[in-house]
Every structure is written in C-alpha cells, then in structure tokens.
C-alpha cells in the first residue's frame, strides 16, 4: 500500500514540500487537509525533499495534512462516454453526470514520430472568406487566434467548430469566464454539436494549477480519438492564461525567469502541447485552434511571440475582423493549389492591392492629393473590406473567389493588378468590361 506522509516542511505559493522516499518524478499524490482533498503532482526531487504542486491551491493546507502518493502520473479516463460531458482541469465532472474512471490513460505522453506523420492534404472549409480564401485552414494544422481582450474570439472559435467538417470537438477552457463557458456549452447544444464534443473547462474562479492540466488532458483525449480514425478539432482558449499559470509555478520554484518573468522553457512547454496536432499515417488527425490574447495588443509579448514560432501561422483578430496582414496560414499552399487554379492568384493579388489601399489611406490622412490610381485603390479597399473581410460574410470558397474577380474587375484594368495574362483571359469578368464600354462612348 502507498505510504502516507504527514509532515509538510514548506508551503509556498501553490507548492508544498514534504520529506518522503521512493517517490517518482511527476508522480501524483492526494493531499488531504481539513478543507478537503486535492490532487498534487511531484515537480522536483531533491534528496528526500519532494516538491508538489497542489491542484486546488495551498490555501488552508495545514503542516500536518496527509500526503498520499498514488504511484502513477496524471491520468485521465478515455471512452466514448466522455462525449457530451463537461469536466474540470483535473478530470472531475463539472456537469451533473457521474465520474468516469474506466480505461485510464497517461496524459502528456511522448511525441509522435515524424516518420508516422503525413503531409496534411485536406482543407477545412469554414465559410469565412478571410480564412478560406486568404488563410486556408488545413486539417492537422495548429493555429492560434491572436486577439486583444475585447475581441469576439470565443464566438469565432465556436462558429468555426460548428462549420468545420470534423468528427469530434474538444474544448479546453483555461481561465474562462463563467459566462463564456456557458456560451460555449449552450451554443454547441443549440446547434446539436454537444453530443460530439468533450469540454474540459477551468474557469477563472478555479485554482491555478488545474489550468496547467487543461491542454494536456484535452490533447490526450484528442489523441486517443484520433488513433481511432477520428478527425478531431481541439479548441484551446486562452493559452495566455496557461502561460501565466506556468509563470506562477516557475517563480514559486525560484526558477530564473527569462523574459518578463516567464520561464526559459516557455517555448518548449507551449510546443509540447501544440505539436500534438497531427495527421497520422493510417489514422485520424488533430487540428488545434487556440486563442492567445495579447496583453496590450503587443505581438512581441513572450506568449504570442513564442506561440507564433511554434504554430503554422496565425489569425489576427482586430476590430472584429481577421486582419489580412500578419494573419497567415503556413499550410495553405498545401491545399490551395487543388481548390481552383485562380485561388492563389486572387489571394496574392487582392492582398497586395489591399496593402496599396492602406498606403493610400495614410496619404489621404495626411491630406495629400489623390491620384487616379489612389482613387481606384480607395474604391477597391472599401469594397474589399465590406464584401470579403467582414466576419458576418458566410459564403463558400468558390463564390468568394468569383466575388474577388468581380471586385477586381469593377475597380481596375487587368494590367494594373499584375495577374498573369493566362488567368486574366480565363477569369476576368467579361460583363464588367462590356458594361464599361457604353460609358466610354457616352463621353
């Protein structure tokens, strides 16, 4: 039987230290004090001194609290019974359902052998032109949504979750406002998607350490579903809270901070989670969409910065729109050559012209005279923002491409756009050109 220890040497932050022997690194323990029982995990061994992070926090723990080591690392149950259920970061039910303890699996398992991965080939259609046309989401991609606190990132995630063609949705909520948690649950339920979803939710009111477990537990479950040939979409919101929880523990453990107090291994810690996104050779896939709120709208803040280096692109959410600059889907080139031949050209041309529009706006703001070219750009930019950029636009990719051609043709001559001559011949709307002729005659 497992030994019980009753003498806690040190309590600092959410970390307690006991003297114990035969304890394994990362082993789980139960800490029982008069305030209740909590799980705790070993995070350092130093001779007989064992440091543990207590999931429920150290508040109210007495020096004579019971510490019982369980002989295994953190685990979670995995079965179809998880679907439709809501759990906390430590895996206990948050809804009124029964606890599930069958088929336990370790969380935070080893990484996938690159030789068993395949190149992602499937586009995830979302019906949002800013994603489908300009930054196509690809199955097995890991993509963060960089956002300032007030932006509608959770509704965006929920909408993508519903419209994307996936088998299983797993939501990992970290430091979520209780309202937001209810929003996700109700939204999925209303649209009949809760039955294929599992929610692991840590709300802002819950103990910090549980927040650390959410990505691991969500991804461990996702991995099992993927191995059963399912296409899984994992939504993580908000990873900045996760990083802050890491920071808290690191500082408590007196680690040397590297950048704005974050631990030196922040990159590796984030990467270990994001890299779980995978397209398995001969099995399913995991796609990760994660919200990273940028403190002070600063993309060079360590959390978005490290995230950007790990993920395969990013969506910038600003002023309720997905910004075309800065937003990027690094995997889009794997799929957008097989959608329609004009996809890439439309994507590049429209963005380059939109960049021109932005420059013109600056010039206009400074009161310079607008040239003929500037006026064309202004007309173009406004239509682009209204008809394609707006997040409420919901049209399939092909329609969005046609719309792109129409906007171009309404605003420019073919040569002004830099579109290859062959594509102009094939796609440039003829109707628009003819419609303009009578005007020329009238002059």
């Amino acid at each position, binding site marked *: 039987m497992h030994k019980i220890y009753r003498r806690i040497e040190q309590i600092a932050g959410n970390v307690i230290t006991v003297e114990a022997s035969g304890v394994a690194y990362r082993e789980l323990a139960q800490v029982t004090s008069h305030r209740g029982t909590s799980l705790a995990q070993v995070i*350092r061994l130093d001779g007989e001194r064992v440091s543990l992070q207590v999931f429920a926090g150290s508040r109210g723990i007495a020096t004579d609290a019971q510490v019982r080591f369980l002989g295994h690392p953190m685990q979670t149950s995995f079965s179809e019974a998880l679907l439709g259920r809501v759990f906390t970061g430590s895996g206990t039910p948050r809804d009124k359902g029964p606890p599930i303890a069958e088929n336990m699996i370790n969380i935070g398992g080893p*990484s996938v052998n690159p030789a068993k991965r395949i190149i992602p080939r499937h586009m995830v259609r979302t019906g949002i032109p800013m994603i489908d046309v300009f930054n196509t989401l690809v199955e097995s991609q890991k993509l963060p949504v960089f956002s300032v606190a007030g932006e509608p990132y959770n509704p965006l995630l929920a909408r993508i979750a519903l419209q994307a063609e996936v088998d299983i949705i797993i939501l990992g909520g970290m430091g979520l406002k209780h309202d937001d948690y209810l929003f996700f649950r109700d939204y999925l339920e209303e649209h009949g998607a809760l039955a294929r979803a599992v929610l692991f939710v840590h709300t802002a009111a819950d103990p910090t350490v549980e927040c650390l477990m959410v990505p691991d537990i969500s991804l461990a479950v996702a991995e099992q579903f993927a191995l059963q040939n399912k296409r899984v979409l994992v939504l993580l919101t908000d990873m900045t809270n996760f990083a802050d929880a890491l920071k808290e523990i690191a500082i408590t453990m007196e680690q040397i901070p590297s950048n704005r107090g974050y631990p030196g291994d922040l990159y590796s810690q984030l990467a270990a989670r994001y890299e779980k996104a995978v397209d398995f050779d001969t099995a399913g896939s995991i796609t990760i969409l994660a919200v990273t709120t940028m403190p002070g709208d600063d993309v060079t803040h360590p959390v978005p910065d490290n995230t950007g280096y790990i993920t395969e692109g990013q969506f910038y959410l600003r002023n309720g729109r997905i910004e075309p600059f800065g937003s990027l889907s690094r995997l889009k080139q794997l799929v957008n050559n097989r959608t329609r031949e004009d996809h890439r050209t439309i994507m590049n041309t429209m963005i380059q012209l939109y960049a021109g529009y932005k420059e013109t706006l600056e010039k206009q703001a400074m009161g310079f005279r607008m040239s003929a070219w500037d006026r064309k750009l202004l007309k173009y930019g406004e239509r682009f923002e209204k008809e394609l950029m707006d997040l409420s636009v919901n049209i399939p990719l092909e329609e969005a491409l046609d719309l792109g051609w129409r906007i171009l043709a309404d605003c420019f001559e073919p040569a002004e756009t830099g579109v290859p001559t062959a594509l102009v011949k094939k796609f440039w709307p003829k109707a628009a050109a003819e419609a303009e002729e009578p005007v020329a005659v009238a002059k």
Partner: protein
Amino acid sequence: MSENIGRIVGVNGNLLTVEFDSPVTQNEVGFATLGDLKLKSEVIRIRGQRAELQVFEDTTGLKVGDQVEFTGNLLAVELGPGLLTQIYDGLQNPLPALAEKCGFFLQRGTYLDSLDRQRKWAFTPSAKKGDTVQAGDKLGNVPEGIFEHRIMVPFSLHGKHTVEEVAAKGEYTLEDVVARLKGEHGEAVEVRMLQRWPVKFPIKAYAERLRPVEPLITKVRIVDTFFPVARGGTYCIPGPFGAGKTVLQQITSRYAEVDIVIIAACGERAGEVVETLREFPELTDPRTGKSLMERTLIICNTSSMPVAAREASVYTAVTIAEYYRQMGLNVLLLADSTSRWAQALREVSGRLEEIPGEEAFPAYLESVIAAFYERGGLVKLRDGSTGSVTIGGTVSPAGGNFEEPVTQSTLKVVGAFHGLSRERSDARRYPAIHPLESWSKYPSVVDDEDVRFARQGLRHGNEVGQMMKVVGEEGTSLDDFIVYLKAEYLDAVYLQQDAFNAVDAATPAARQQYVFGRLVKILRTKMSFDDKDAARKFFQALTQVTKDWNRAPMPGDGKTADAEGEKQFKDLEARIEKMVEEVTDYA
C-alpha cells in the same frame, strides 16, 4: 569496461543530480535506469562527489536512489556508408526504424543502431600494403547512391601508420575489418567501415583551411546576386515568425548546387520535416537525375522532442557534414533554428542555477555559437582535393527584434546576413529578405559594378518612397518618381520570386547573369513620361510582362527543352525591349 554506477539524489525537470564513487568524465554518457528502460544522459557538471546529468528523454517516473550507469564514452555519432537518405533524431536514432518498432509514438529509452549492420557494401581498395597513411587518408571506397563513399583511416588515430593489409575487392558489412594498420610504435589497428566520432569535437584530418571565395548557387536571385553565400562560408537568416525562414531553407535545400544537404530541424515544427521527408523522395535532382533524397540527410529534433537532445542535434548534424567533407564533397548544413538550440542551452543553464547573462541566456552563449559556425569551412584535403561545409542557420529572435543576444552573437561570426522583414512578408514580397539591411562578405555571381548600381537604385528609390510619405506624390518631382518606380520594378521582377512556379522558383546562375544584365540596362535607361500616372501605368505594364518573362523557360536552362516555352522567352524579351524603347529619352 569497468562498471561505474552512480545513484540519483535529485530530479529537476530533465536534470539529474547523481552521486558517484569511481571517476567520471565531463560530457560522458550515462544511462539512468528506470525499470527496464535506460535513459540516455550526458554529464554536464561535476561538483565534489555529485555529477549533474542532462537526460535526453522525459524523466517522469525516476526516483531518488535509482541507478545511473556511466559508460566512459563521450556523446558520439556513427560514421560510415548508409548515412545519406536517413532520417535521424538528435541522437542519431533512425526514425523510420523506430516507427516500425514502436509505432506512432517515440518511446523513450529505445536506441537503435544508426547504421544497418547487416547491409553489405561493395568495397574497392585503393591503398596498398606498405603505404604510409594517417587519419583521414583514403583506404578504399564503396558506392553510396550517387557518391563514391571514401573509407578512411579513422580520424581518432594519431601519427603515421603503415598499411599491413587491405581487404580485397568485395562485399563487406560495416563491421568487417577492411584494413589492418601498424602504428609507429608497432601497435596494430583494425579498420572497419564504421567509425565513431565525439560530436563536440571538430574533425581536423585535412591539410589546410582555405578562404571561401567560390559562390554557392542557391538559385534564389536576391541571395545569389545581392547577398551571396560562398562554398564553405556561413550565413544566417534571422526573421520574425511567419516571415518565411523555413520556406527559404526548404527552397535552398532543394535547389542549392552542392553535393550533399544536411537538414538539422532543431526545435522546430514536425510538419516541416514531414514535408521534406515525404516530398524529397518524389523530386528529382536536376544535377543528377536521381531522387533528391539521395543527397539529403535529415536530423530532426522537433520542438516537442526532449530539449537536451535538441542541443545535441546540431552537433550530430555538423559532425556528419564534416565527415562527408573529408571525401572531397561540398556539404550544405541548414540548421533551423539555432535560436531553439540556444534556448535549450538556456533551459539547462537555468536548471544548473548558473548566473544568467542577457535575457537569461548563459554567459558562454556567444562562444558556443561562434565555435559552431567555425566548424563550417573550405578545406584542402591531404590528397589535394577540396571539400566544404557551408552552414546556414535561421535565427528566431524574440519579438522579431534583432538586438537580442542570439542574433547578435550569430552576426559576429557569419559571412552573410539575410535579414527577413515583417514589412516585406506582410506585403507578400517573397523571399522577404530585406534588400537594404542585409549584407554579405562573399563575391556575387553577377558583375559587382551592376550590383552596386542596382543597390544604389534601391536605396535611392526607398528614400524617395519615404519622402513621398511626407510630402506626397505631388511634392515629388517626376524624375524622383521614376527613380522610385524603377526601384519598385526591380523589387517586383527580380528580388521577388514565385516559389510555386516551376521556372521562377529556381533561377540558375547563367539566367541570373543574363536577366540581371538586361534589367540593369533598363534601370540605366533615361526615360521620359508626360506625367506620373503615365509613368506608373508604364511600369505596371512592364512589371507584368517581365514577370511573365520570369515564368518562361530560358533556352539552355537545363529544364525540359520546350520549344514553345523558349520561343515565349525570346518573344517576351523582345516585347520588353520594345516597351522600353518607346519611352526612352534620347535627348
């Protein structure tokens, strides 16, 4: 080897504190025992009777009191025929073989032979009995794919040796003895095709190091023409995330004119490695007509794999690069990203509680980076042939700020700097190498005078552009405006390259010389226009035709002889000339 067993007294992340009785060596390899598993680790600090070891695996489950077996050997790689086409992890474990054994996931504590012990190689001897040889000299060779793989006197031998016996022509495995040597003091040495070399020591079995001067053609125009790389040189690509560092590396690994490409994916995404390892076998190398994989070797320690092995991976890669250099081959080592490697150093340093330097990087960061890049170089071997290791490393500066320690330490030691800019990548100008901030100390493939003129034009155009932001277009003279348009034109049709177009993606040196010569001529042409709108319209049209020209195969390009396409090339060139002629100011 005597048994040397230590005992774990502390575990902190991937760092073990171990008490030992018999002597241990700094950087020697130890195995921590966890049940049936043995976890590879390396001694990184010794204090009194305690050694600190970084474990190359996840340490979950290790206990105080668990045993650590010290091996007495430094961390080493296996060298021999069969390395090419392989995909190794940072410790030279073959990943495909590992996948066969363990399935989808990388199980810790599983170590396989890096090279196939069963496979037989057709050995042809070249040394004779009685020859005097020393470390690195050729004894014979075996064919490895498209190369003659030299079997050499082990690099670890000191002094001169006499060949006693060389195996006859025939088939041998890596572990068969192919030669017997006798040292100056009569000691007998058996030579096998397989040898080991500790990764943290450079291989120095050559006659002399030479200055790198010959350009290494990457077929990326902005690189070869403006910021060239030399064979045996070093360069770095710093850039914020999303600016296209990895894409640039991938393009280089595909098209660079070298014999062997070693890709060290160090702490980056697994997806990128997958793209390479799934696509390369399908692509043909235009130089040899064989699969591109035959000249490629991948060392991959992706970001989710253990951190300590990430640090080892760049050394594993450079050691293998040096090994092939010893055969008189030109090797290109692409390390992506050296920042992740530096971060691995930082993580370990933090756990050792060393006094931190800037941004918590260890104080020895600079010397470690310098020592790594210094392993690149052009060397003359003792048989008179030359070989080179070119190192190109990406740097991922925190916040895209080049002032940070890793970028700065790297800039001090490299010969070329390809700084990627967020502005250019946001404007979809690829490759996003900044044409004004980057530099190179190596000679270009085109005429130096032309390059100077073009750079001058770019700088001048940029100045006009900046000024125009303040005084507006109407405040700019038509002449200045033309300067600006010319710079934009050069940027659009030469600096930028369409990576997805088969022709435009890779521009051989000959085509660069030809096209750049034509473009400089256009830039030098004095032009006259009625007004700015007319000038802009002209350059928009010219840009489009020139881009079409870039996409047309050039006669004698080595690409498939497509008569249609070649005619197009000539036609477009004629059109461009005619267009320019129409606006030329002959006054």
